[in-house]
């Protein structure tokens, strides 16, 4: 029985709010865009958080990469590696992005951004025009990677019944302690709170000959370094982000920044005694993935020799 409360929603009101697009594509607006357009829009409106290459800055979501990592330790879940439906990307970007300015993108801009994200995941060519007409043809790599909740069958049957009350195990050993990790925020009243672990004393290294730094070149390198900044910090307060701190990197042993989780590839190279000499750094920066297969550095590389030299000179100023 109805109470006669509320009023009829007007078509214009429904149109203003009813934006959702379901996994079958119902609700996709007419429009199109390609990754070339998308790259520009992305650089302007998305890259501050998601990085120029959709690789994600700090804790912001990574949108690209991670293919075939879902059954590994710490899988990288991105639009390319994880999302089952491309409609989700369109729906979410159109309604909720850009962050802090939601719902301001045109339908074509959203198509272009979605195309750029696909391109960043190596799933389409940069000139592939994504539109409402071919959108549903696109098959996501992990489309078949989901099952409907099966806890009732897979778990509930095992974890039920009268539980053990006595002599449930022979011995009990502590196998892991939270204090060892020390990631709990400091609390005034926390009796168990740990003192911030004393940072390792800087190693007493032999005084090297201070190499002369070409300040002009270093200044040029500072500009180039903008491309690196989304992942790497330098200077006194630098912290490891998605890439390690780069203070004193020139001439240092590879893989030696404390607290940074390097790729296996880089750890192997470090074990083999790799030193980041200017020559090695130059080769790495030119084509990171070719230089070191398996590196975490998701950066295409600095093509110009002048840029490579400049950024290395700039890094030399951070001892």
């Amino acid at each position, binding site marked *: *029985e109805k*109470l006669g*409360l*509320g*009023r*009829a*929603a007007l078509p214009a*009101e429904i149109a203003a709010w*009813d934006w*959702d697009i*379901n*996994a079958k594509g119902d609700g996709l607006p007419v429009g199109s865009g390609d990754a070339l357009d998308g790259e520009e829009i992305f650089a302007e409106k998305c890259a501050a958080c998601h990085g120029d290459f959709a690789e994600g*800055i*700090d*804790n912001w979501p990574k949108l690209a990469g991670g293919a075939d990592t*879902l*059954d590994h*330790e710490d*899988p990288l879940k991105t639009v390319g590696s*994880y*999302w*089952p439906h491309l409609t*989700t990307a369109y*729906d*979410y970007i159109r*309604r*909720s992005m850009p*962050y802090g300015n*939601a*719902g301001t993108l045109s339908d074509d801009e959203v198509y272009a951004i979605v195309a750029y994200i696909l391109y960043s995941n190596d799933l389409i060519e940069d000139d592939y025009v994504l539109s409402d007409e071919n959108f549903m043809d696109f098959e996501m790599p992990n489309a078949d*990677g*989901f*099952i409907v*909740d099966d*806890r009732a069958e897979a*778990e509930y049957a095992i*974890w*039920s*019944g009268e*539980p053990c*009350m*006595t*002599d*449930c195990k022979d011995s*009990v*050993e*502590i*196998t*892991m*302690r*939270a*204090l060892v990790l020390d*990631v*709990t*925020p400091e*609390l005034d*009243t*926390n*009796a*168990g709170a740990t003192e911030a672990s004393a940072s390792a004393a800087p190693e007493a290294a032999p005084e090297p000959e201070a190499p002369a730094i070409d300040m002009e070149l270093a200044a040029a390198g500072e500009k180039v370094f903008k491309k690196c900044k989304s992942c790497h910090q330098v200077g006194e307060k630098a912290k490891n982000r998605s890439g390690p701190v780069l203070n004193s990197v020139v001439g240092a042993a590879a893989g030696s920044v404390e607290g940074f989780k390097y790729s296996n590839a880089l750890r192997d190279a470090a074990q083999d005694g790799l030193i980041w000499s200017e020559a090695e750094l130059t080769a790495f920066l030119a084509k990171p993935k070719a230089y070191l297969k398996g590196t975490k550095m998701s950066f295409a590389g600095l093509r110009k020799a002048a840029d490579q030299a400049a950024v290395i000179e700039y890094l030399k100023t951070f001892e």
Partner: protein
Amino acid sequence: TADPLIVESQDWAQSFGDGVDATPYGLPIEYEGDVIRRNVEWLTADTVSSINFTPIHALDGTITPQGCAFERHHSGAIDLKKSDYRLMINGLVDTPLVFTYEDLERFPRENHVYFCECAANTGMEWAGAQLNGAQFTHGMIHNMEYTGVPLRLLLQEAGYDTAGKWVFVEGADASSNGRSIPMEKALDDVLVAFKANGEALRKEHGYPVRLVVPGWEGNMWVKWIRRIEVTNEPVESREETSKYTDTLEDGTSRKWTWAMDAKSVVTSPSPQAPITHGKGPLVITGLAWSGNGAITRVDVSRDGGKTWETARLAKPGEKMALTRFYLDVDWDGSEMLLQSRAMDETGYVQPTKAQLREVRGLNSIYHNNCIQTWWVRENGEAENVEVS
């Protein structure tokens, strides 16, 4: 020697305290200033899309005061006046409708106590003991008495199509946080709520109106709810595909894992609530809950799971609400490995971490309802540990 607090006259026993108008809407006394929500900065990039934690180690009973109940926002807690509030019901209905806040208060309403737990609660502990305190390991939960209108009544008012299998719900904030809910649940016990613990919802909990989805993961409890669409298909939005899906060891992921399974934790003693009184009478207490029904029993172990004692429930368990348990013991001052294990009315027994990992691996993130262990030392301090 005689206690000066007794034998010497004290200020508070001589002169006046505050008058009745000193705090028209009161806050806790300053000495309780550490009983607050806390954030773990490294978890997220930005506080407007983040979560904080209820200080469960310092609370007792079961009702969480709104002021310290954990917050989760996807685009910040928005400022939305009742007079600016609109709720639309559209999709597969006879008449798409718009309700004002006042309209909602004219529907028959109900009161229910329910817990709201983030699917990621305890999620940081999958790979091992990580955060040192019940607030951080288990504080993405609160439990309130909600006043609201059954969603069923609003759907009836709009004349929903009985063939519609889903409702899509979204909020008025910039994230809109859309989620699909099966029609069966929507018609069962979902509430469109505007009061919690007797007072208006706090801003951070969705003022003026939020959805309450009993027993199901907190993300579905859409705040600032502005639209409910009856549909044939789930939307498969970001929050129901890329997030809030549980990846298993072989790389496949479970979706639609809505219900929060039975779980419990000892809130005291715990790392933030050490034993300060030495040996002798000790109250061990904690919370238990299940999204699949009422808690029927909680067992406590003091030796890391070798032997268990059945704890006393403060009240019989209620469906989809927190239950407080107590174990009153005579502590001999020796080390303890404290654990609690909940059972619910379906016969489900809270699993160990090892049992969970055996089925799901380490990458599930969500729905970690493992048995928690606190290592209590002779000096009364406690630490989050894992045991064999």
